[in-house]
């Protein structure tokens, strides 16, 4: 077992984790940043995205790519609409009070999870990847010929995993462009900076909140649709992404999108690498330890700004 090839493979696997994690965490960070809502149900929106992707893929049939593309569009939209409805019917009613929103979203978590168990069932179901094929990593070819080794298992990555990395990157660029370059992004940032002044300058804060909550949940759902050909859809699959997303958001700085993306890359990659060389448990232990250290020494997160 040589070190080099394993490291590259672990890095690529880690990058897949990081890509999906970045989408999920940016959704969580956006919701917290603009609305100051700690959304405990975020992982369930992720899970819903995967489950809806399975349903859509079943209904569409035909070539796997058709079902997958349909799921990629439909699942985030449906989950986003559900989340926006939850915002208007639940969070708005409790006036976004910090403690009550935590309790309310915990309730939402169990409702979504149990409803999924009652309808979708306890099975884990796969969605077929839109395209297969393995991409040989050129470095390994060189390595093989040099040492005259036989092709070992798994020293290549499926092209689909590379697609996940690039797709997530593209979506994140889209989110950045929306926040930095569009009118609605400007209104969101103004709402984030000062809610009362946003109201005093005619911004319909309630509608901005519903939209942000929907987009946040939609991003989690999108991440799940991307991962479901690799991991399968299951009603409990939202627990770990929720935990990791919180770790990422705390390390990156609450409400800071660049910080969140960098932290997701860091946690995702280190998770991949440490899992391969040591154990997945150690990876989680170190990530949690890092959260502890960040909270003690830099409570606003690595890239967060302290708000007065």
């Amino acid at each position, binding site marked *: 077992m040589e070190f080099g090839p394993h490291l590259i493979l672990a890095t690529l696997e880690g990058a897949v984790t990081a890509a999906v994690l970045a989408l999920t965490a940016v959704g969580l960070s956006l919701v917290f940043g603009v609305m100051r809502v700690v959304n405990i149900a975020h992982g369930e929106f992720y899970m819903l995205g995967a489950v809806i992707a399975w349903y859509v893929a079943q209904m569409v049939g035909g070539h796997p790519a058709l079902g997958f593309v349909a799921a990629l569009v439909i699942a985030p939209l449906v989950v986003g609409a559900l989340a926006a409805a939850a915002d208007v019917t639940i969070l708005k009613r409790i006036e976004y009070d910090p403690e009550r929103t935590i309790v309310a979203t915990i309730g939402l978590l169990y409702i979504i999870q149990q409803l999924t168990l009652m309808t979708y069932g306890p099975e884990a179901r796969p969605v077929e990847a839109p395209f297969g094929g393995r991409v040989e990593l050129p470095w390994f070819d060189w390595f093989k010929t040099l040492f005259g080794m036989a092709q070992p298992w798994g020293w290549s990555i499926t092209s689909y995993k590379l697609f996940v990395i690039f797709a997530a990157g593209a979506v994140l660029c889209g989110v950045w462009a929306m926040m930095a370059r569009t009118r609605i992004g400007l209104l969101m940032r*103004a709402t984030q*900076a000062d809610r009362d002044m*946003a*109201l*005093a300058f*005619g*911004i319909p*804060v309630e509608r901005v909140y519903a939209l942000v909550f929907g987009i946040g949940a939609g991003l989690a759902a999108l991440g799940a649709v991307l991962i479901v050909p690799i991991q399968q859809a299951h009603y409990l699959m939202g627990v770990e992404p929720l935990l990791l997303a919180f770790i990422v958001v705390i390390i990156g700085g609450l409400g800071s999108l660049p910080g969140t993306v960098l932290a997701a890359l860091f946690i995702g990659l280190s998770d991949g690498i440490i899992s391969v060389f040591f154990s997945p448990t150690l990876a989680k232990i170190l990530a949690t330890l890092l959260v502890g250290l960040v909270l003690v020494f830099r409570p606003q997160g690595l890239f967060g700004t302290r708000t007065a």
Partner: protein
Amino acid sequence: MLELDAVNSGYGAAQVLRDLSLRVEAGEILCLLGRNGAGKTTTMQTIMGLLPLMSGRITLDGQDIGSLPPHEVPRAGIGYIPQGRRLFAGLSVAQNLEIGLQVPGAGKEVLDEVLDLFPRLRERMDQPAQTLSGGEQQMLATARALCIQPKALLLDEPTEGLQPSMIEAIRQVIVRMRAQGVAILLVEQRVDAVLSVADRVAFIENGRNGEVLSAEALRQDHSIVDRYVGV
């Protein structure tokens, strides 16, 4: 004309304003004077709809604005310059002004008009708002409210912590707005600064109406000021 009629309001269960009535004519500066905690800022937040109206009526040129949702109030034509400026941090000067401009859906002409009043902002358009000096921040807060093309302007301690040249610049803009027929409600701690611009002064005490006097009368008899604001 901005009119408050027997307004009751406050924070949750804590009532601050009790049957407060005020009238600000178009083209008039009414100054609200009172001790700390008398309800001056509460009055402004209630007008903006940021605090719930328990009872009473608020009208602007006859339109009932007390019943509007908060984000519709500025659209009715009320510009708010809050205490402590409260600019949108993280947004540039230009973006802060854009937020003001989108209220009436105004364009470049309005922006140019406003920037003509504050030429210094023109040089700082791309700078993040929170990096401006105190005086420039106050200019931006004022410019942002003027972008609404308001019929009524609420100013909460606009000269707090500013150097004299800045105070004078802000004062000139206020006087100019009055000449354009804007109804101006001004809250200010420094009585002398007030008396030089205000047309009338309304005293407020424990959230209730005190006397309403012409600024002229106060300039001649200072004793009443000491009674309400007394140091």
